[in-house]
Structure formats: C-alpha cells, structure tokens
C-alpha cells in the first residue's frame, strides 16, 4: 500500500495535531538480514498507536529505533522536532523525552522500588531527593501499588514489576511512552492490571506507541493500528477498519490466525 493511503486513514481531527514521531524511509539491517525496510509513519501528539504483526515482523526493532536502543541505517527519525543522529546530545535529549517499557521489565534488581523510580529524576533531571521521592510516591499511587515502595523488584509479582517499570518511565515526565510487548512475559491473571494502567495513561492524554498481542487493547484503546510484516508496514487504519474490514490479504490472514 502507498503512503497516501496511510495518511487518508488518519482522521481529520488527528491530522490537525502536531507531529510527535516522524519516520521517513527507515531501513535497518542486522548483518545481511533486513529488519526494517522503508518504514514511513507519523504519530501525532496524544495519539495511541498499536503496532501489530507476527513475531519477527520488525515491530520491536522499529520501536527500539525510536529511542536509539538500535541505530537505524537509512532514513530519518524525528521525535518532537529533534532528529536522531549519531550526535550524543540529541540522543540524550530524545531519551529523556521518551519513556520506554520493556517486555522483561528490566527493573534494577539491586535497588528498591522507590530507588528504581527516583534514580533518573535525581541524576538526569537533577531533582532533589525529597522531591523525587514525592513524585515516586504519587506515581506508585497512580499505578496502584503505593505499599510496595520499599521492596526489591525480586519480591514483587510480574504484574507489579511491570507497573513499577511504567512508573519508572513516567518519573522522567516523558512526552511519549513506548511499550515493547509489555504483557507478553506476564501470567494471564496479571495482564489486566497492567492493561488497566496503560488505559488510564491513554485517557490522560499521553502519546503512546504500543507493540502488543493484546487485540482487546488495540480495539478498545488505539486511535490507529499499524500492521507490520517482514519489516514493512502492511496496513494502517482505525481499529474499526482494521478488525472489521482489512484491505490487505496478509492482514486478513494474520487476523484469521489470532482472532
């Protein structure tokens, strides 16, 4: 499908907003294997975008390129008006604007929950410790686990850990949140508690880009769904369009397998 189709899929109201993430013809290779080819997409301010696709389709690679955990080789990635290049200062600026939540939580195991959350605000944002701890307490309240502040990550359940990870990312007061399969490593009964936090975050007006296999979340919360396969964007559309009337053959095949 062409780029113009993708643009049509965006509603009028969204189109009027500022661009938050702009990708133009992004390519990425791992050795000889092309993980991303010609990714072009624009994510608007306060938009919730869900990226779907079979495993190995390049969705995680793409989201990791946006805060430079992976370096793209061709094309442009512009986050909030700053272009990602090899310039370290730009990378640092973008990373402090972009929060990220990982599949494996990646909490710091040697620090308590509250220290996990306050580490970056204190040392990157240069906040005072009491100020940062106040912020951490508020965020733990928001993700629903204020009583776990003094525990170590290893003492928490998976769902609680992932909520701490979300609080840690939010503590930097980011403009964008990236979620890389946030519920894939969780037991079924814990998925909901994490999705609830993410929904609340979406309602609060955060710009979010979510790689997930949770079709329910995509249908309920997303403004737009992007379907990827083989390192390419195959189809872009509203959840309604995507789940009821997909145009592409590959999308139909994928949906028939997962739904």
């Amino acid at each position, binding site marked *: 499908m062409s780029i113009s189709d993708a643009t049509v899929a965006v509603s009028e109201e969204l189109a009027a907003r500022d661009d938050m993430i702009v990708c133009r013809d992004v390519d990425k290779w791992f050795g000889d294997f092309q993980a991303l080819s010609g990714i072009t997409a624009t994510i608007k301010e306060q938009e919730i975008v869900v990226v779907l696709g079979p495993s190995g389709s390049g969705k995680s690679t793409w989201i990791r390129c946006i805060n430079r955990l992976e370096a793209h080789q061709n094309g442009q990635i512009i986050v909030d008006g700053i272009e990602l290049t090899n310039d370290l200062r730009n990378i640092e600026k973008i990373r*402090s604007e972009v929060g990220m939540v990982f599949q494996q939580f990646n909490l710091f195991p040697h620090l308590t929950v509250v220290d996990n959350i306050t580490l970056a605000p204190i040392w990157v944002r240069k906040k005072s410790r009491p100020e940062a701890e106040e912020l951490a307490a508020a965020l733990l309240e928001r993700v629903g686990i204020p009583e776990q502040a003094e525990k170590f990550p290893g003492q928490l359940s998976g769902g609680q850990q992932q909520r701490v990870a979300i609080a840690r990312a939010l503590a930097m007061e980011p403009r964008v949140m990236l979620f890389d399969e946030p519920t894939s490593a969780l037991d079924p009964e814990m998925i909901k508690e994490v999705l609830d936090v993410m929904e609340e975050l979406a309602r609060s007006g955060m710009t979010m880009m979510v790689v997930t296999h949770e079709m329910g979340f995509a249908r309920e919360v997303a403004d737009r769904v992007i379907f990827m396969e083989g390192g390419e964007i195959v189809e872009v559309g509203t959840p309604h369009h995507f789940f009821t009337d997909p145009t592409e053959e590959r999308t139909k095949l994928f949906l028939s397998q997962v739904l």
Partner: protein
Amino acid sequence: MDDAAGTRGTAAAGGAGPVGPVGPVGPVDPAVTDVAAAAAARARPPEETYRSAGEWIRKNLFSSRLNSLLTIAFGLLILFAARGLLNFVFSEERGWDAVRTNLRLIFTHAYPEEQYVRIWVCVGTLVVLTGLSLGLFAGRGEGVQLQKISTVMAGVGAAIALGVILREPSVLIGADGAVVRENDDVVRQSFFEAMADRWAWWLAAAVLIAAGVVLRRAVASSKVSISSVPAVEFAVALLALPVLSAWIYPWGHFAFVDGTFIAEPGRTVAMSTKVPWTVMWLLVVAAMALGRLMRRGFDEQQQQRMRIPLNLLWLASPFALYWVILRDPHLEWDRVLSVDIPMGVLFGVIGAGVLWMLTRPGVGELGRIIAIVLLGVAAFNWLAAFFGWYSMLQKARLSFLLLALVALAAHNFAGESIKRRRLVVAWLVLMAIVHYFATLMNAPSTVETPTEALIGGFAVTVIVAVFTIMLSFPLGVLLALARTSRLPIFRVMATSYIEVIRGVPLITILIFFAIILNLFLPVGMEISLIASATLGYTLFSAAYLAENVRGGLQSVRRGQFEASDAVGLSTTQRTVFVVLPQALRVSIPPLVGQMIATFKETSLLAIIGVFDVLRMANSVIPAQTQFLGIKREGLLFVSVVYWIFAYTLSKQSQRLERRLGVGER
C-alpha cells in the same frame, strides 16, 4: 521501619494462606477449638522430627554396603591422620618453647619494647571499630541455637576423649631430664599408665559431654525459655575465656628480655601480655555496648547513615595507624610551618577558586578545555621529575594532578550553588588529608629498629596485605571498566597491561620491584623495600581483580543497559549506579578469593629479604642458640595463624553474599 515490617508480615501471612491446606498437615490437637489458632498451626510447615544419633548414622553413613565400606575406609584414614598430628604436636621432643618465647618476634619482629604501647593502640583502635560495627549492625539474625551449642560441646568433648586414646603413650623422662632409651629406642609408658596420666583431659572431655547432654535435654524439655543466644555476644563472651585464663592458669612465662632468655613454666603469663589483652577485651565489650545503645537510639535510616562515617573510619585507619601511631613521625616544625602548611593552604585556596569557576552554570566547553590544560601541566610535571628538568616537591606534583582530575569531573557539579559549595569543601578536605599524610610520610620516624624496616613478622604481612587490597581494588575495577570500554585506546591499554602482568610470575615482579624499581624513580626519590613490594603486589593483584570484575560486568544483562539508556542515564551514571553494583555483587566470591590469595602470597616477602612471619619461623627462630634448628613447630604455628585469618575472610564473604542476596533477581 515499622511500616515495612508490617507489610512484610501481612504479605507473609497472605502468602501462607493458600499454601496451608495444600501443604502437609501437621497433627492438630483436637482440643484446639480456636479456628484462627488451628489455621495458624496449619499454615506453619510441619516441625522437623528429631532423629536420634543412631538413626542419623544409619541413614547417612551406613545406608548401603558400599556406603559402609567408604565410611569405614575414610574414617580410618582420618583417624590415622589425626593420630599422626596429635603425636607430632604433643610429643615430648617438640620444642614449643621456641614458639612461646618468640611470640613477640613472630608478630612484630624487632619493634622496640618501650614503644610497644603504639602497637596496642593500633590493635585497640581496630578492636573499638570492630566493636562499634558489631554493635551497630551485627546480630539481626536468629543467633546461635542452644541446641547447636550443646551439639558442639558434646562433639568437642568426644573429640578430646578420642584424641586422648589415639595419642600414643608418653615417653619416659629419666631423673636427669633426658628421654630414657633402651637400645636406641625410647621407652614409653604402658597404655593404662598413659590413660591414667591424662586424667585432666578425661575430666575436660567428661565435663564437656555432660554439659552438652544436660543443655540438650533442657532445651528439648523446654525448661530453658530461650532457644538461642545472640551470636556476637556469645562469641565475645567466649573470648573472655582465654583472657581470663591468662590471669588464673599457669601457662608459664617465656620471653627474650634484653637478650636474656626467660623460661618460668610454673607461673601465669607476664603482665605485659595479660593486661593489654584484658584491656582489648574490655574495649570490644564497651564499644559493642555503645554500638547497641546507638542502635536503640536511632531509627533504621539513621543507622544506615551511620554506616558511611564508620566505613570511612575503617578506610582511613590503615593510613592513620601506620603513619601517625606506629611510625611516630618526627616533624621538623620549622619546615612544617614554612613549607608544608603554606603549600597545603595554597593548593587548597587556588584549587577551590579554580573549581568554583569551573562549576559556574553555563561554563560549557571552556571548563573542559581548562581541565585538559591542567591535566597537561600535571603530566608535564611528572615527566620533568623523571628527567630531572626542574625540581618540585613531590606533593606539589600530586596535588596538581589531583586538581586536574577533579577539574575534569567538575562539570557534573555545575549549577546550584549548594552543589558547587559541596565540591569546593570536598576539595579542601581532600587537600588537608593529602598534605597531612604527605608531610607525615616525609618526616623521619622516631621509632628506632635494628633493621631498615619499621616492623616485621605477622604485622608486616597484615600491613602489606591490607594496603595491597585497598589499592588494587579500585585499580582493578578501573582496569575492568577500561577493558570493556568502547574506546579502543582504553581497551588496548588495559588488555595489554592485564595480559602482560598475568604472564609474569609474581615472584619475578616482586624481585623486580625490590631491586630495580629505585633505578626507575625520579631523581632524588627513594622508596622502601616494603613500599616497593606493596606496589608490586598491587599491580599484580589488580590485573587478576580486573578479570574477576570483568566476569561480573559480563553477567549484567543487556536489558539493564537498555533500561538505563531508556531513562536517560549517561554512560558514567549507568556504570556507577546500575552496572557496577550488580557486577561487583556477582563477583564477590572470586574477589574475596583473590584477596585471600593476596594475603597468603605476602609470604613471598620472605624471599626478597623482608622479615615477615614466614621468615621468622623458617630462618630466624631456628638460628637462635636456645632453639637451634627448631623449625617445624614454628611453621605449624604460622600455618595455623594464616589459616585463621584466611578462614575468617572467607566466612565474612559468605555472610556478605547472604546479606546482599536481598532483592536478588
């Protein structure tokens, strides 16, 4: 603290709830009608049933034919080894007097008698620090189980009884004090005579076994209301036994005083031994009580904050004890007032000014350029010293270098004036400490010893080991970081350093540093044998530590790096706050292994001519006219001393591992 304990308690109860009915249900007394109590009883794991000793032996030692055979074979092996050792240690031919008389020589070599109080001040300082640390931080665990104590008591009693039987009968001593011989064979007592002769040992064994059994019964029948005693207090109380025995039991008085040999077997030990040790014991008790008092007065957070000054005192103690107390510097006050103090003040003030300027908000690139220029000047100073271009006091060079290094890091403190002020104060404190110690080190010592070295024996072992460990640890961490760095220059330098050092035998490095190092030093600079040996050990040990730390660094998962990057930490912050703490925790066992190895390798000092503890036992004592050729006793004693220290270190590392295991992923 109370909050945390509360939540932990409820969490534990909540967790036990669903497990209770599933887990094995213990016998519930039907009389228990209280539902809650019954639930609580079910929530607990079933109590371990007490097995009799016979049952345990059948199950673990004689469970199968092969197992029985192995038990018997290896049991006999152990018995034979124990018998050999006992016969060696308790033989009438052993000259243990050689060790008893030379204890002072073994531990401190020729440190002058009249200055000995300095050594006791050093020991006392360490004892007080230990007591404070123990009182403040130790003993949060369960303590020692009384049941375990009873087992150990009975076990020791049984071992003594077995030893008494195993040891061969004593040799008969004739009226002239010589061993009675018949046809060149020594004549021994009959077995029964020997057993009767050793009544004191039998008594000791019987008392210990009886006490153990009584204690065990009392605990089992819950006549004693406590099931355990605090571990630290128990250990300190045990230490009172040897101290007290010095006042009561006639261990004998053996010494060399002013070159004369004293041997008075029938009396208690000399005042100059028992008084200091009693004082040491009282000090540790007092310091521990003080620590406990402070612990009660402070909440958890304040206690954690107490760790910092206490650990700083521990870190500072080797330097202060060696140069201030043990060495007793003879300061020339004219020079101190006219040169040393003005220079310290000058560097403090100018450095503070430079740092204040470099931390101005928005100083930007200019600050880094100034820091790099400073670093260049500092490097040039050292180069000039090497070729003797212009003279300059060594501490001026050192201060210059420190200023350049701090200036390089200054931009991290730019901004708020409170941070700037903190950096400046830290700089002033650093300068005060550096200049103070540089002055002390350059002053001659008032302590006069016959050899070039201030102190020898076991003290020198400890001093070299402590300084080596303290210096090589940061160096090793830096080398490991450099070797895993992304910058090729660091990587190449660190890798080649590590590979070169690891390819050269330690003894070669030591001899090199002992003999050749002085030739490479700047004009007019000299370095003592012990200092150059310490340097050699440090460089050697750092290479190995670096490899251990690198192993830890590699075990830190990639996700940790990504998470640190994602929250915006810089490379330095990521290393300091996220990667190193995890890497060091993983590498505790090999790091402690390396420390123990370093401690034991100090015995090589004997080869380069330092009078260390091994040399005392191996060559000094056997050369004394009274103890000509008596070597084995000294060597055995020295091995035991080494073992005690090495074993303590490894025990402590295990404790550290357990303590840091909290929150392990």
